[in-house]
């Protein structure tokens, strides 16, 4: 392989990984933008989405479906996981966060950490379900193989670069989802209401905006994006496990902070940056330094731009 070939290949890998991170990061940033809560359970909601996708895949026997059927299957998993994760995230808000809305931010944060543990343990139980896709539930904590129904073959044959259907899937799902989300926030009534609540919840409620319902909707949308991400992640990496939410959540949270927490384009930029930095560090430095590099960059950016790459500098709230 030539030098620039390697570089381009790493760029593709970095962008694919970054897109997945970005999709999870949006969930963090949306919730933060509206109630200033870092929803630590988000990564674990994402993990449960992947378990649902694998359960659907196993229960419906998707592996045996033909190529057309499998495209349909992927759509089904995307919708299923999005609704499930959205609903779960909404319920977390309803059950664990709403009652604490008026209390200190710290109690809310502790509540979020608690939700994260609960979800993670649900994943541990789920892994023990006696289904064939979970290796008959023999070992609940073991990583599960997620069948590669989107094949990992090179579409360019023995070509210059290696682009697999899984790579394409990542872009084919994330880009439209992000465009739709931007449109929703900028143009629709709900989007306007969300921005209003983010700016000043009291004033928004005075104007007749149902604040709690808008916050609930934000949780639902953020969770649904996590659901999309979980299916893409599973089809791209072909392994899921009950602990995957911790690492994915940490990466996504870092991306959200890097891009400027509260900013949607910031989350995307942060995700792509982290994905690409990881790839380049793996290639041109050593793999064992990659995590260090990522966090050094984060520290540097926060020193020189405390509100992140695209975060606004003005403090809107006390």
């Amino acid at each position, binding site marked *: *392989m030539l030098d620039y070939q*390697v570089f381009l*290949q*790493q760029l593709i*890998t*970095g962008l*694919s*990984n970054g897109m*997945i991170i970005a999709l999870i990061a949006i969930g963090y940033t949306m919730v933060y933008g509206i109630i200033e809560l870092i929803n630590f359970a988000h990564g674990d909601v994402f993990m449960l989405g992947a378990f649902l996708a694998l359960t659907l895949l196993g229960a419906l026997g998707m592996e045996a479906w033909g190529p057309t059927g499998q495209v349909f299957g992927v759509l089904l998993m995307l919708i299923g996981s999005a609704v499930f994760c959205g609903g779960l995230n909404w319920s977390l808000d309803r059950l664990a966060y709403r009652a604490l809305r008026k209390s200190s931010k710290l109690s809310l944060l502790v509540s979020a950490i608690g939700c994260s543990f609960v979800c993670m*343990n649900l994943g*541990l*139980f789920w892994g*023990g379900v006696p289904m064939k896709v979970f*290796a008959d539930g*023999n*070992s*609940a*904590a*073991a*990583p599960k*193989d997620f*069948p*590669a129904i989107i094949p*990992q073959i*090179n579409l360019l044959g023995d070509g210059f670069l*290696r682009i*697999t259907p*899984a790579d394409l899937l990542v872009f084919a799902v994330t880009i439209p989802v992000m465009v739709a989300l931007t449109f929703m926030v900028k143009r629709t009534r709900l989007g306007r209401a969300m921005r209003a609540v983010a700016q000043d919840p009291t004033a928004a409620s005075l104007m007749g905006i149902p604040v709690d319902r808008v916050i609930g909707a934000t949780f639902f949308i953020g969770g649904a994006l996590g659901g999309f991400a979980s299916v893409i*992640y599973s089809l*791209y*990496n*072909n*392994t899921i*496990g*009950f*602990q*995957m939410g911790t*690492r*994915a959540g940490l*990466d996504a949270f870092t991306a959200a902070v890097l891009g400027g927490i509260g900013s949607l384009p910031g989350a995307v930029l942060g995700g792509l940056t982290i994905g690409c930095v*990881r*790839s380049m560090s*793996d*290639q041109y430095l*050593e*793999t*064992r330094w*990659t*995590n260090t590099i990522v966090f050094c960059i984060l520290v540097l950016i926060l020193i020189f731009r405390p509100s992140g790459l695209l975060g606004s500098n003005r403090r809107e709230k006390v």
Partner: protein
Amino acid sequence: MLSFCAAGSLFLAGAQSAKVATPAPAGTLRLISSLPRTGSANAQTNTMVNGIKLAIDEVGGQVDGWKIEYQDMDDASPQRGNWDPAVEAQNANAAVKDDECVAYIGTFNSGAAKVAIPILNRAGLVMVSPANTYPGLTKAGFGEANEPLVYRPSGKINYFRVVPTDDLQGVEAANWAQFLKARKVFILNDRELYGKGIADVFRKQAEKLGLEVVGFEGIDSKAANYRSLATKVKATSPDLVYFGGTTQSNAGQVAKDLRSGGYEGMFMVPDGCFEQAFIEAAGAANLNDKTFVTFGGLPAEQMTGKGAAFCTAYRAKYDADPEAYASYGYEAARVVLQAIANAKTKDRAGVLAAVSATKDFDGVLGKWSFDANGDTSSRVMSGQTVHEGNFKFVKVLGN
């Protein structure tokens, strides 16, 4: 989940001791094993515990009129899904406090042994490991400068193992790589005690044999994927990739991503991946016929003599095939039981002295003795490949 397992093993232990109908035993002696029973190593440790129980059953649950009890401890935590240093320390301390406990069988992971050995050493409690292969636990010159003395605060040796160490296995792996006509090798490791250790040995021997080492990298075993690493590996076009690590440190994902990243050469792993869970995690299609696994011992179907008898007894009792380390679980328990029989005083000191005096032991892999470091003199190793989703024995290594 956890409490359920514990209840299950208590029930089994109860069922076994009920069989013993001896008049008034002289007392009770307890063997405690500490193995990762939660997480993906569970399939492997299940068969090891079965092996231990089989050995105790064979002597009728008693030695010289002393009743033998067995306690199956878990050194893993659900949070880690793997062995946990805090739990291991807890287990070792519990064993020390248990006055009837005369032997500690474990651990599975070399890292866990690092925690347990010094605790047991201070109490003069003998520890026999069925699975630790990191050389530094017993031998100087392979790991840290203060090894192995740091594990022997009392100045005496209390740690023994029935498996050959990685300095032997890593060398044999590199020799095998050369035999398989690999010229360029890329070496990966999981940055853990066992994985990094064996990868270092592999690298040394590969360089000695004149193989070109085109890369040596430590991976992040919690990463979501290794696509970028796969591209880097592929760009150096090696004939063989060696991964020093275990199923628990993501060997399956490494294998998957090497294949989906377009690497089509050979892949070699040590005994930490010699379990069905590795094939399940990696997906058989990614491993078939191009994956090579070394193991410090023989797979069940290749054993002769005492080993073959063990396999027959195992299948009869459990209606399943023993996994790679089951025979060592059995062996470790038998060493301890024989030592109890030979011990002049049936207490910790007596059993420890008797274990260290083990000589020409008629084991599952032939006759062997413990050397001055506490290592087995057995040198039998084997190489296997993955064929149609199962391990297939290829050859005996090192002869």
